[in-house]
């Protein structure tokens, strides 16, 4: 309660106008991150982010967004409070997938070509080590206790389970064909792997370490985001120009909505669903409950938004 009052006071003092959700979207063709004020439907900052930035992870715990740029083999660090670039890390040969542990302490980067996950300190940006994983590691996500991470080893059709204390891949779980993006339920029990070639989503029960359901979606599922209450998962179908809506309780697809062309990154901000169109250089905004289009916002060139790109300042939640 007290914290809430302090936030309200802060809000009244200075930053209320910019306290709404902000989307940090990577633009691979124009080498920048566009920061979109979702409520105002406008770009409030354009930040240089290495060469061909693709992956992004906003960590409120770290107070930073981390952006992977495969062509410059760098990670750009953006401070969420000032919305400014505050650092850059060299990262292997071709970093794509990226995540931050929920405690905000470690950054994990999938180095596509070297079949490793690189680990960095989120505060100092120092390299902490690396973990040998499977072939063509892509999407990454860490458990709520920040001790375990999961990586989509795309060319193995499997998810690697990483012990972040031992710095080792300790297990693999078979999923569908060509998994790229991953997401984890808020309770850390259910992992979703998006299989680009088999056009389905593997639902993995982590207690059993196995796929317990396979949900057919549209062509080339590429991005996933949950509703705030976790009961819905939204999956973009890159070659279907659509979004599949999954009921996470019943584990079934309950709707397929037409979307922007070549949809990739996706995020939820309250009742709004944001879907990045790689082809048309924009982000489509939809009613997350009905799929009704609410308009779009122009971005940079070839936007991706691969990862959790939404920053929800505390006052806006």
């Amino acid at each position, binding site marked *: 309660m007290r914290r809430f009052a302090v936030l309200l006071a802060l809000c009244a003092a200075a930053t209320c106008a910019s306290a709404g959700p902000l989307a940090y979207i990577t633009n691979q063709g124009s080498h920048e991150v566009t920061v979109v004020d979702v409520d105002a439907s406008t770009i409030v900052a354009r930040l240089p982010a290495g060469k*061909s930035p693709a992956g992004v992870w906003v960590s409120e715990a770290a107070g930073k967004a981390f952006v992977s740029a*495969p062509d410059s083999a760098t990670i750009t660090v953006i401070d969420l409070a000032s919305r400014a670039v505050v650092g850059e890390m060299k990262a292997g040969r071709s970093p794509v997938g990226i995540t931050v542990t929920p405690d905000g302490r470690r950054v994990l980067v999938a180095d*596509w*070509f070297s079949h490793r996950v690189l680990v960095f300190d989120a505060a100092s940006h120092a390299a902490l080590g690396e973990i040998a994983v499977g072939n063509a590691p892509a999407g990454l996500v860490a458990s709520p206790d920040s001790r375990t991470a999961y990586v989509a080893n795309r060319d193995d059709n499997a998810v690697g389970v990483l012990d972040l204390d031992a710095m080792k891949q300790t297990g693999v779980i078979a999923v569908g064909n060509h998994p790229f993006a991953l997401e984890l339920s808020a309770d850390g029990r259910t992992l979703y792997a998006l299989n680009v070639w088999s056009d389905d989503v593997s639902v993995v029960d982590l207690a059993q370490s196995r796929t317990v359901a396979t949900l057919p979606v549209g*062509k080339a599922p590429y991005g996933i985001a949950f509703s705030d209450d976790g009961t819905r998962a939204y999956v973009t179908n890159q070659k279907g120009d659509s979004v599949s809506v999954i009921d996470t309780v019943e584990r079934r697809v309950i709707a397929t909505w037409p979307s922007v*062309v*070549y949809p990739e990154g996706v995020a939820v901000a309250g009742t709004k669903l944001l879907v990045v169109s*790689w*082809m048309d250089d924009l982000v489509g905004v939809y009613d997350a409950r009905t799929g009704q289009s609410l308009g779009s916002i122009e971005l940079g060139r070839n936007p991706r938004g691969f990862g959790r790109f939404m920053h929800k300042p505390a006052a806006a939640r």
Partner: protein
Amino acid sequence: MRFVSAFVMMLAASLAASFAHAHGPTRQKAFETITIKASPDAVWAKVSDFTQLQGWHPAVESSTATNGSNVGSVRTLKLKGGGELVETLESIDPAAKKFSYRAKDGGALPVTNYSSNLTVKAGDGGTSVVEWRGAFYRKYMNNDPPKGEDDEAALTAVTGVYKSGLENLKKVMEK
């Protein structure tokens, strides 16, 4: 023996290095659109026949297709002046007036993993708006591509196909 194993190791290392860059390039795209003074139904009837690209694209001499305009049909396009393209129909949606196709190998085009879609929309005053989009990688999948196999060559080639095709489609439909 020792020499041989050292050689094998070197070979393996160099193979690993070249494989490591196998996905080096970033995905490129092309997008062209044109407004045609003809109804969307008429334009769709023309463009949705997967077997008859030669009926409106000026670069295509003739074509064959394995299964007409059904999903999975593979068409082989013979180009004027030589060269071939082999494309697979991936989806076709008459209600949305949209179809998509792909080519793993670019054939006569300097591209790799090419996918494309074509959409007919209603424009103002009974006209049609045709949109043609493509996503692809350049032909040379390693680093440091030679000229003609780089991103620019891929982009120029695909853009040229779309532009000339749409311009001629307009001519054919507005005759």
